[in-house]
C-alpha cells in the first residue's frame, strides 16, 4: 500500500512542472496586453507603457519571466495580481471556501439523487422507471448549464418566489467572514434566520452544478450494478434466501461502488473548475468566476497561480480516490 502511494506521489512532480509550463505558455500565447486592456479606449502612451511593463516585470524575456515564476512557486509565492495588486494566494483563499462549499453541496445532491436513481434503474431494469431514469440522466448530462440555471431561477425564484435569485445570503444579515464557509459563519453568527437564508441560497446553485455529475453517477451506478447483479455470487446469495434488499445493498452495491467512486472522484475536477458558469449566473463569489475574469484581463499571475492550485487539488483528490479503492475493495490493496 505505501509503495503504491509512494509510486503515485513520485508522478506528481513532473505533472506539476508540466502544469506550470502549460499554463504559462498558453496564457502568454493568447494575444493581448494586460496594460492595454486596463487602459481601454483611453489608451496609454508608449513611455507609460514601458514604465508599467518594467514595473510589472512584463518587459523581461519570457523564459526569464517563467523562471521567476517557478522560483516564486518554490518559495510559496504565486505573485501579485496585475489588476488589484493583491497577492494571488490571498485572493484565492478569500474565494476558495465559496467554491468548496458549493462543490460539496452539489456533490451531496449529485450522490443523494444519482446513486439511488442508478440502483433503482438497475434493479428494475427494462421497466418504465429504468427508461425514465436513463432518459432524465441523459437530459441532465446534455443540459446547457447557463440555460438550466436561468430556467430554474425564473421558475423558482422569480415566479414562485421560493428561493432567492442569487448571492450567498440575504443582504440583511451582516455576517463576519470567519471561516469563509457561509453555512458555518451564519450558524456561528447566531443571527436568527441567517443559517436558513444561507441554505436557501445554496439550493439552486447546488442543483445546477450537481446536475451533470448526478447524471454521470446515475448512469455509472446503473451499469456497474447490472454487471454485479449478474454475477454468480449474487445468484448464490439469493438462492440462500437472503432478503432481496440485503443482497442489493450489502452484496451487490459494495462491489458496484468501485467504478462509481472513480467517477465521483473525477467529478471533483468538474465541480471545482466547471463551476464557472454556475458561479457567474448565481453571482457566487468563487474561483471559477475569478479565473475567467483574469483570463479576459490577461492577469497572468492570477491565471497561472489559480490554475496551479486547482490542478494541485485535483491531483490530490485523484490520489485519495486511488487510495479509497483499497479501502472499499481489499483485493486491490493486496494485489498492490
Amino acid at each position, binding site marked *: 500500500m505505501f509503495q503504491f502511494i509512494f509510486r503515485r506521489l513520485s508522478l506528481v512532480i513532473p505533472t506539476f512542472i508540466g502544469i506550470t509550463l502549460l499554463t504559462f505558455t498558453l496564457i502568454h500565447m493568447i494575444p493581448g496586453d494586460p496594460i492595454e486592456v486596463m487602459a481601454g479606449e483611453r489608451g496609454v502612451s508608449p513611455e507609460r507603457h514601458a514604465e508599467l511593463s518594467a514595473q510589472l516585470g512584463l518587459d523581461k524575456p519570457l523564459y526569464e519571466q517563467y523562471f521567476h515564476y517557478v522560483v516564486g512557486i518554490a518559495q510559496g509565492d504565486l505573485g501579485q495580481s496585475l489588476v488589484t*495588486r493583491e497577492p494571488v494566494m490571498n485572493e484565492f483563499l478569500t474565494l476558495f471556501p465559496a467554491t468548496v462549499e458549493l462543490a460539496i453541496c452539489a456533490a451531496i445532491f449529485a450522490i443523494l439523487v444519482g446513486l439511488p436513481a442508478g440502483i433503482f434503474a438497475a434493479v428494475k431494469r427494462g421497466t418504465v422507471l429504468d427508461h425514465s431514469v436513463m432518459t432524465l440522466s441523459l437530459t441532465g448530462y446534455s443540459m446547457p448549464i447557463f440555460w438550466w440555471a436561468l430556467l430554474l431561477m425564473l421558475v423558482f425564484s*422569480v415566479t414562485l418566489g421560493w428561493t432567492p435569485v442569487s448571492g450567498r445570503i440575504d443582504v440583511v444579515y451582516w455576517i463576519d467572514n470567519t471561516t469563509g464557509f457561509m453555512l458555518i459563519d451564519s450558524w456561528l453568527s447566531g443571527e436568527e434566520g441567517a443559517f436558513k437564508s444561507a441554505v436557501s441560497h445554496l439550493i439552486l446553485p447546488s442543483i445546477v452544478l450537481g446536475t451533470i455529475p448526478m447524471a454521470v453517477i446515475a448512469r455509472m451506478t446503473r451499469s456497474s450494478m447490472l454487471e454485479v447483479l449478474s454475477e454468480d455470487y449474487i445468484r448464490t446469495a439469493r438462492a440462500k434466501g437472503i432478503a432481496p434488499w440485503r443482497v442489493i445493498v450489502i452484496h451487490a452495491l459494495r462491489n458496484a461502488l468501485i467504478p462509481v467512486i472513480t467517477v465521483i472522484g473525477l467529478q471533483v475536477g468538474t465541480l471545482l473548475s466547471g463551476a464557472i458558469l454556475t458561479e457567474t449566473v448565481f453571482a457566487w*463569489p468563487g474561483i471559477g468566476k475569478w479565473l475567467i475574469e483574469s483570463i479576459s484581463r490577461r492577469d497572468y499571475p492570477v491565471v497561472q497561480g489559480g490554475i496551479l492550485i486547482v490542478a494541485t487539488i485535483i491531483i490530490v483528490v485523484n490520489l485519495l480516490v486511488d487510495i479509497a479503492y483499497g479501502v472499499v475493495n481489499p483485493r486491490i490493496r493486496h494485489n498492490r
Partner: protein
Amino acid sequence: MKKGLAALPFAVMAAAAISTSAQAASTLVYCSEGSPEGFNPSLYYSGTTFDASSKPIFNRLMEFKLGTTQVEPGLAKSVDVSDDGLEYTFHLRQGVKFQATKDFKPTRDFNADDVLFSFNRQRLDSNPYHKVGGGSYGYFNDMGMGSLIKDIVKVDDYTVKFVLNHPEAPFVANLAMDFASIFSKQQADQYLKAGTPEKLDQEPVGTGPFQKVQYQKDSLIRYVAFKDYWKGRAKIDRLVFSITPDASVRYAKLKAGECDVMPYPNPADLAQMKADPNINLMSQEGLNVGYLAFNVEKKPFGDVKVRQALNYATDKQAIIDSVFQGAGKVAKNPIPPTMWSYNSAITDYPYDPAKAKQLLAEAGYADGFETTIWAMPVQRPYNPNARRMAEIMQEDWAKVGVKANIVTYEWGEYLKRAKSGEPDTILIGWTGDNGDPDNFLYVLTSCDSVGGSNYAQWCNKAYDDLLVKAKRSSDIDERSDYYKQAQVIFHDQAPWIPVANSVVYEPIRKEVKGYKIDPLGGHYFYNVSK
C-alpha cells in the same frame, strides 16, 4: 418509491424555501456589475471602481451637480482664477469631518494638508506614497495634470493655490473627476508610520456620504451612512452593492425585490421592464459617441470625397434600429447633443447611395475599392454590438461598390494595433469624463493625439487651432463659439462617420425615490430614499 425519487429535488427545495423580501426599510441594494479593482480611485480607470469608491466614500474640491455635467463647489467653497488663467485659488470648506475606522480615528477636520497630500501623491516622485499600490496614476496623467500643474501652494489651512504651466480651461472640471478625490493625510501618515501604507488604498476614509464597512470580493460591499456628513446624513441607513455580473440575473433580482437599482440592462429586456408595474425604467441620453474613424493616412481615405461618400452611403437609422434596439440616437457631430457647444445647426449627411457613388466617381473610384472595417470585440454603451454594426455598414458600402472585410482582434490587441495606425477604418467610441467638450474633441481629434486616441490619424491645422484657442480661454461663450466652428470643419472634412449617441437606461424599483441618472455614467445614492 418512484414518486419519492422523482420529487426529491423539489422536496429539498420546497423544504428550505425561504422568503427573501425581509429587508430593512432603510437598506438600499444596488446590484453592481462587478468587483471594484480597489478602493483608491486615482489608481484605476473603471466606472465599477469609481462607483464603489469615489462616489460613496469621497468628495472632491469641485463636484458634478447631480444629474448634470455642470461643475459646482464641493470641498472648496469657491475658486478665484487669476487674469492670466495660471493661478486657481480654492477656498476650502470648514468643519468637514473625515470618517473613522476601527484603527483610525481622525483628530482634526479636513484642511489644506489633505488637498496637498491627495495631489502630491500622484504628482511627485518624492512623496512617500507615490510608489504605493503600483504608483500608476492613469487618469491624472491622461488628463495631462502632471505637466499642467507647476505647483500647489498651501496659503493657509483653508486656502490652496494651484499654479499652472499654461492656461487650461477644463482644469476645474478635471478636479471634479474621480481621480481627484481627497484622502485624509492624517490617516496616510498613521499608516506610513505603522509601516502599512498599502492599507490606505484598501481601507481609506473620506469625507463622503457613506462609509465602507465590509467588502467581500465578487460578493458584496456594505456601507453605512456617515452621520457627520457635511451636507447632512444620507436618507438611507445602509447601502449594499450586491455584485451580480450577469444582466439577466440582475433583472431577475430586481423583479424579485432583491435589489432596488440595477445598471446596464440588456437592450432586449427593456420592453418588458417598461411594462412591469413594479419597475420604473429611467433613461437619459448618455454622454458618449460611437463612431467609425477613417484612417486618413491610408489610401483612399486621405481623399475627403471618399470619406464624405461613405458618410452618404451609410444608413445610420438602420443601425440604430438593429444594433441599439431603440436605445440610441443617430449622431452627427463628434460630441453628444447633451453637451454644451453642440452645433445643432449642422445638417447630417443623409443616406444617399446615389450621391455616394457620384462622389466616389469624382474621387476616381467609380468601380469602388476594397477595404477593411475593424469591429470591436467588446460591448460598450456607445456600441452594444460592433460586429453587427460592421455587417450593416458592409452591406451598405457594397451597394456603392466598396467591398469591406470585417476584422477583429482581442480587445487589448485591437487597441494597440489601432493606435499604431494599422486599420483602414475602425469602429470605436468614447464616453465623457468631465462634461467638457475638450475631453472629446482634443482627446479624439487633435493633432497631439495622433498616434494615441486619434484613431483617424487626422490632423487639420485650422481645426486644431480652434481647439487650442478654446482650451486656453476661460470665457465659456467664447469657447463655445470656437467649438461650434470646429464642428463645422469636422463635418466638412468627415474624418469619422459619427454613428450613435446611446441612451442610458436604468431600471429601479418603484419604491425608490430621488434617484437620478448621472450623464457621466456614475451611480450616486446620497439623495435616494426608499
